[in-house]
């Protein structure tokens, strides 16, 4: 037992690189910051030497100014909240409907055969194609955007959950039978945790879609939101403020994805990412 236990304890430690922690930190944070600075510098140089005409390439200074302007007018914050609200609602609704449907389809071959072609059809239909209908059915405001987010995320989520269920090793269900898991308990205690890592990955992917779609969705039929902000800046011939919205969208999207990535660090899904 002795040698085996020792070996195991060695393995149960996080498999970190042997480099010094300081060096790791530099590589982890220093390099991206350097790349960022390079991009900013290039941008500044391009606008400083007028490589592009000013109307086609706003300068970093102008963008900074419009940041100040948008924040002090309270519009930026309002737009951020509007976009986040729409994404959150659309996303939660599609997860609440899509994941259970995916679980059910994953376990019923007949259901799969019946629904998968239709689901695939809708998945390949760009959510933006729904814009005219979203506006016709839901008029203007939050609803059409939420509908578009739903259309964008529902089908990928269902299909991902379904295929995750279909690939659960049979052995788990045998074990579940040995220990008398049945019905709803089987679903919540075995099937769901078994697909959770893949579902989390699917959530991250479809969140990415949602964030891309919200910007496009808000360009029509909305009165606020980040996408609307870009559209309005464009109508107002203010490319600097459009860039300030673009930066906001990128930073927020990245931040929320980092947040979702935290889910993969939870101990009961960790296994799904280490095999």
């Amino acid at each position, binding site marked *: 037992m002795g040698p085996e236990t020792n070996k195991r304890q060695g393995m149960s430690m996080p498999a970190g690189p042997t480099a010094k922690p300081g060096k790791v930190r530099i590589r982890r944070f220093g390099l991206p910051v350097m790349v960022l600075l390079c991009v900013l510098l290039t941008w500044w140089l391009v606008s400083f030497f007028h490589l592009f*005409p*000013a*109307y*086609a390439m*706003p*300068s970093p200074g*102008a963008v900074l*100014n419009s940041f*100040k*302007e948008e924040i002090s007018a309270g519009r930026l914050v*309002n737009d951020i*909240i*509007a976009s*986040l*609200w729409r994404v*959150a*609602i659309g996303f*939660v609704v599609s997860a609440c409907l899509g994941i259970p449907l995916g679980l059910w389809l994953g376990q019923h071959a007949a259901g799969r055969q019946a629904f998968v072609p239709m689901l695939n059809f809708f998945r390949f239909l760009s959510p933006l194609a729904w814009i*005219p209908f979203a*506006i*016709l059915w839901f*008029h*203007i*405001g939050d609803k059409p955007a939420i509908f578009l987010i739903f259309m964008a995320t529902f089908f990928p989520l269902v299909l991902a959950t379904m295929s995750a269920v279909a690939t659960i090793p049979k052995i788990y269900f045998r074990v579940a039978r040995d220990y008398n898991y049945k019905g709803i308990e089987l679903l*919540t205690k075995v099937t769901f945790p078994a697909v959770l890592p893949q579902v989390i990955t699917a959530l991250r992917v479809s969140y990415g879609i949602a964030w891309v779609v919200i910007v496009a969705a808000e*360009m*029509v*039929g*909305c*009165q606020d939101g980040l996408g*609307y902000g870009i*559209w*309005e*800046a*464009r*109508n*107002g*011939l*203010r*490319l*600097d*403020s459009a860039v300030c919205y673009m930066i906001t969208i990128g930073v927020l999207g990245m931040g929320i994805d980092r947040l979702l990535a935290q*889910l993969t660090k*939870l*101990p*009961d*899904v960790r296994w799904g990412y280490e095999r």
Partner: protein
Amino acid sequence: MKLSITGFITGIVLIIVMLGLLRYRPWNHNGSVNIKDVVHDGPNNKAKRQLTVGYLPVTCHLTCPVTDFASKTTHANTNFNSQVFSDFPTVVSALQAKQIQATFMIVPLAMKLREQGVPVRICYLGHRDGSEIVVAKNGKVRSLRDLKGKKVAIPSPYSNQNFVMHKLMEDYGMKPDDITFVVLPPPDMPTSLASGAIDGYFVGEPFCAKAELDGIGRVLYYARDIWPNFISCALVVHEDLIRDNREVVEDLVRGIAQSGAWAETHRAEAARLAAPYYRQDQKVLDYVLLSDPRRVSYVQLTPTDEDLQQIQDMGIKMGLLTKHIPMRELIDRDFVPQTITPALIDAAKIPDPQAGKIH
């Protein structure tokens, strides 16, 4: 940390509730859904009613924010909230859903709506002129004939610009397909012209002024030169509002008429007033309003049968409109005031524009 289903759900619910609270701010809810769209909160104790009016941030719709401002800073019976839209399809949708019951709109689109059974009426005009044909600054184009075989951008098939252009080509003895027309969003027109993607465009301000200011284009024709008293946009009101609330419509038309009269003579102030509503660079608005009085005018805004009949005839000829709608059904002149005095806007109350604009 262990993922418990209840904890997870609680977290999500918390996030949603928080976002919902931030979004709808129930703590400062004061009865009006559109209050957040009000740029200037001025005391207007006498106003007993309120109405939301839609507009796009183009100078053709300038009287809309001016009326909004006037209703809040002067003694008025109705408080008008101007609600900005970014494109006409959205305006149409809002009108169909009766989320707004009055809006500024391009005239042929209003006719099309009426054709499709949306009961709207043209009660007043937004402006006269206010559009130009712009061509590349250093190009050789000197007249419409020089545009033969070239590409010209228009904002929409249902824009009066499109109609007038075809009328003009007819007058010049050109065939309809002598010029290739492309529909472009107005903000893209100056840049498309700069890159050579199009050879000219015909659109409302401030997208013409922008090209001139950026040194991209020059004006080939002012709208008034080719079509006297040119109209592109009008005030469109839902019949339900006309039926149910005549006083409000009366206030609205009077307000717009007075705002127009004020803006005609207080152009610099009007530009300063509108800039924050439009979120636009005030320089562009200044240019539109001040550089040449021929560019746009805000008087003689009563729609006449001849004006609109001409537009409708052209639309039907082009096959874009299909029905002859009698002018008495389309136009409602009942609310136009007998005498129009400029609105009593106190220029000192117009907030100073913020510093720090592009270049």
